């Protein structure tokens, strides 16, 4: 490629500027979190004495241990079930290709653009009828359903690319559909499955609307939902609110940094729901 030195130089500058714009709010949040509780610090100013204790204080006053526990229980309810049933459905639709599969697939596709706000009202009454309001099930069960359009589309797209010869060989060896799935296809699908699991983990962790509508007790919500309640209570104490926000977004950052390769490619290939 013919590229002048000036062009590569400009590219670097643009990249760095974009990175600074992205990072600055995080930095400002961090610096603010170190100020004395109850004060109104200015933008980006290193405090005279950094109050590292704010993180401990926020951790305790938000009852963060309970929140973490709650979020992990919700994740534990959502992610394994959603990934398992989406993989089964994606395998059936994309690889076994039963008669009429395209209609079933389009039926799932229809849900792909659905805004959560569109169904949150009837969902409230439905969950109330089931007697699950204010329990973690009120978030877990609907979320599994809401993730299905994306998850099934994602897994189907993966299984469509698996060669049929592979299954034919296994069939000749006498494998049933069930064995074919577990012994041949699941081991070969680990990258696709783990990408899906990471995405669903983050979307569950960050789910806000369902959490605040269906669960009153912040200690039974997702992390994002609990953060909303935390803002309501500590909205006036800026340093503490910032410390709490940092604590709540750190786990997602860690997960992202560990799995970023899978995450970016997953979001890029299937970025229809965010």
């Amino acid at each position, binding site marked *: 490629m*013919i590229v002048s030195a000036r*062009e*590569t130089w400009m*590219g*670097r500058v643009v*990249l760095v500027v*974009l*990175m600074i714009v*992205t*990072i*600055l709010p*995080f930095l*400002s*949040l961090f610096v603010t979190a170190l100020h004395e509780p109850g004060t109104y610090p*200015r*933008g*980006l100013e290193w405090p005279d004495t950094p109050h590292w204790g704010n993180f401990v204080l926020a951790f305790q006053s938000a009852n963060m241990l309970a929140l973490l526990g709650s979020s992990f229980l919700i994740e534990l309810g959502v992610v394994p079930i959603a990934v398992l049933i*989406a993989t*089964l*459905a994606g*395998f*059936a639709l994309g690889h*076994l*290709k*039963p*008669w009429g599969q395209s209609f*079933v697939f389009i039926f*799932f596709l229809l*849900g792909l*653009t*659905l805004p959560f*706000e*569109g*169904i*949150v*009202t*009837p969902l*409230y*009454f*439905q969950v109330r009828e089931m007697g699950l309001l204010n329990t973690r099930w009120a978030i877990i*069960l609907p979320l*599994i*359903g*809401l993730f*299905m359009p994306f*998850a099934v589309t994602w897994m189907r797209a993966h299984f469509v690319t698996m060669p049929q010869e592979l299954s034919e060989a296994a069939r000749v060896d006498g494998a049933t*559909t069930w064995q074919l*799935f577990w012994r041949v296809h699941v081991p070969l699908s680990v990258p696709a499955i783990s990408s899906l699991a990471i995405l669903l983990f*983050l979307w569950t962790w960050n789910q*806000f609307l369902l959490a605040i509508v269906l669960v009153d007790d912040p200690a039974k919500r997702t992390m994002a939902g609990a953060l*909303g309640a935390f803002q309501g209570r500590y909205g006036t104490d800026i340093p503490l*609110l*910032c410390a709490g926000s940092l604590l709540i*977004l750190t786990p997602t*950052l860690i997960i*992202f*940094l560990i799995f*970023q390769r899978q995450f*970016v490619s997953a979001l890029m290939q299937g*970025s229809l729901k965010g």
Partner: protein
Amino acid sequence: MEGVRTAAAPVESSGAAALTDERLLLRRRRRRKAIRNLSAYGLVLPAAGFYVFFVVRPIVLSAQYSFYEWNGIGPATWVGITNYIEVFTNPKLVGAILNAFELILYFTVLPVAIALLAANLIRAIAASRLAGVARTVLFLPQVIPLVAAGIMWSWQLSTDGLVNQILRLLGLGGITRAWLGNFDTALPAVGVIGAWVLVGLCLVLILAGMTKIDPALYEAARIDGAGPVREFFTITLPGVRQEVAVCVTVTVIAALASFDIIYISTQGGPGDSTLVPGLQIFYLAFYEREIGTASAFAIVLMVLVLVVVVPLQRVLRGRES
């Protein structure tokens, strides 16, 4: 049963044995196919069950509620399309829809434009280590809860926040204000938060699209004397059409269905200047207890998203085939 039929076959007619065998084989194959079809649908069943019960059923219920006057507790009365008329005539509700469309400017047009321009400049160094680091960094806003982005930015955009501090540094102290508390600037300010979240996604997508463009095309264009602008419009833009369509789809949905950021940063205020459909549905259903109007608004929102997104999908498909 299978076994019995096979055993009975040769007795039927020895003359046409070959033909019967063939027919039997065909029948058995068809039966096996039917069993496989059924078992395949057995595997689809759990996913379909969750989807139907927690997504499709609520949509149908939403449509049903939208024709009722109901406070969620007492009896519901049929009111026909009154709720829909309300959605399209009540200035507050119409305003929410218009706000959502204005947000497209900030959530979609701004990030896609920035991403296209930046990607065009970055293209040459897309394989460098700096670009790799940038990919990670620019993705960070995608990963954190939107609620956290809302809290973070409410603070940056406040009177003493980072934004005003930078403006003062640049000698623009005259225009500083509480951006989210001002009737004229609240919606653009909320839009900036959305743009901040979405730029990284668009940039990474579009950069990935650019790596698929044959470098020989650029060399040919240069040799033919094309300038950077010409190059951008004749090679780059057509080359990333599909990625741009994905960006536009994702970001338009984010704009029309926005909730988290606005709930946290402005709660729809000041006045109704940042009220959007998602927030309005939430208030109508859970504060004002107007389930019918909330449901009608929800149906209108779902239709709006489809009307905007489906044509974009055609652009996407068109490229694939």
